[in-house]
């Protein structure tokens, strides 16, 4: 048995791929998915163009990325999300600091945020249209509302985790409120802040884009629903791929630069 192993090992090595087993499996899964996709696309089992060939999607991806109009819509969505992040993030930061800094306020109001947080925010869109109109204002408001809750809750929670010694150091130096916030609280809760921003960005993106799909004449959400309306499936797939790459990439980047990977590793 041992001899067989000894004999077979070099033979196996000579046939082995120059890849680690994990990488080899990943490549195999990707190849398998591509083959199955192409087979379904060519089979005609589904309605025509529901599953377009990968070549067609690739062409649509190239056409979308080389179209200047796409960048206008991307810019509109990015602008709306950025404003939403500033409004929702800053108000979340302020409320989080207030709730985290006061036991009374936390016990009085935090439950409302905690239970409102998981509600589907898109149902507020008709209200936002009434308040801010059908233009970018209502989309920004949707993004800001979505972003507010995770930021506020993360910061309130993070503030309660701050080492009491650090707070006493700040007070012993007679730091005022602004100095306490900028020199003690925010640096000490870097990770909860970044985690809140990461979660906030994800939900702000969803809130803004969903609002664009419902009622808008610009933005990536509008492009997606327009592709649906004219049954341009390759373009819809291309837009969804671009969106997912942006969302997952932004999430990973904030996590990495914010040192969230270090927390997981420790």
């Amino acid at each position, binding site marked *: 048995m041992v001899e067989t192993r000894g004999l077979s090992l070099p033979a196996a090595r000579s046939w082995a791929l120059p890849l680690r*087993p*994990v990488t080899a*499996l*990943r490549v195999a*899964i990707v190849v398998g998915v591509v083959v199955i996709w192409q087979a379904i696309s060519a089979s005609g089992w*589904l*309605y025509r163009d*529901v599953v377009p060939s990968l070549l067609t999607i690739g062409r649509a991806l190239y056409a979308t990325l080389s179209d200047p109009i796409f960048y206008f819509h991307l810019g509109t969505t990015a602008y709306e999300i950025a404003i939403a992040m500033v409004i929702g993030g800053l108000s979340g930061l302020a409320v989080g600091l207030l709730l985290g800094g006061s*036991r*009374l306020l*936390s*016990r*009085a*109001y935090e*439950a*409302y945020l905690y*239970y*409102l947080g*998981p*509600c*589907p925010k*898109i*149902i*507020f*869109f*008709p*209200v936002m*249209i*009434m*308040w801010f109109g059908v233009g970018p204002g209502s989309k920004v408001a949707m993004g800001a509302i979505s972003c507010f809750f995770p930021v506020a809750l993360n910061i309130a929670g993070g503030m309660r985790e701050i080492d009491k010694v650090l707070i006493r150091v700040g007070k012993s130096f007679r730091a005022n409120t602004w100095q306490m916030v900028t020199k003690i609280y925010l640096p000490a809760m870097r990770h909860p802040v970044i985690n809140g921003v990461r979660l906030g960005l*994800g939900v702000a*993106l*969803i809130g803004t*884009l*969903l609002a664009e*799909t*419902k009622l808008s004449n610009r933005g990536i*959400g509008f492009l*997606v*629903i327009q*592709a*649906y309306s004219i*049954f341009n*499936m390759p373009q*819809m*797939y291309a837009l*969804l791929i671009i*969106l*997912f790459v942006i*969302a*997952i990439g932004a*999430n*990973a980047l904030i996590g990495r630069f914010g040192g969230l990977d270090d927390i997981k590793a420790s």
Partner: protein
Amino acid sequence: MIGSVAKHKYFPAALGIGSLFVFVALLELLIRVGMINRFIVPMPSDIVAAFPRVIVEEHVLQRFVLTAGEAFSASVLVTIVGVAGGVVLHRYNLLRLATETWVAAIAAAPLVLMYPLYLVIFGRSALTIVMMGFTAGIAPVILKTLEGLLATRRVLINVGKSFNLTPSQQFWKILFPAALPTIFVGLRLGLIFALINIVGVEFLINFGGLGQLINELAERYDLAGMYAAICFVILVSISVFLLTERLERWLRPVD
């Protein structure tokens, strides 16, 4: 002074509820005196008065049952496929190493934006809504099932081995019961994600239960009714959240 008041058992809760009532009363006053346009923000008293009308005329209970049915179907799918997925990834280590980051990436992706694609594939039907809920809820269940199984204490696994348990017995008697609290955390997340997306997609495609109701009332410009429907959806969401939270606490092992 404030600290001693804060320590009082009921004062913070009373402050929270009191503030809410003051806010609502102030809103009513500002609308009545015309400082806030009542054609943009309806009076809270009108919203309260609209509740019985919306419940009876708009068939809220039937709509609630429809949304609950969609959420239940999505939850069953999420539970079966998600837990099975987590178990498979735990069983095959190489597969876990190759795909765990992909599942985590899917969890971070804005999957709800695929709803126009689902509309094309499944049609404008309850199936689209259920599949959207399923898609949104699957990733956390897989990840939490895997986390729970991986975190099973070594001593428990060794106890199973010392009793010469078969792999099947080892799973059902040791691994699964030990991982159940963590699996339930995932199921709770999955159910909440599914419910959020189900109501959201109902609203967006104007089909189904409670989400569609809000859209219809908004399109009819029935402001008080729309606000009442939004309050009803919030109450349902909070009730589901509280219920699942209670269940999670009940399942959590005592440290």
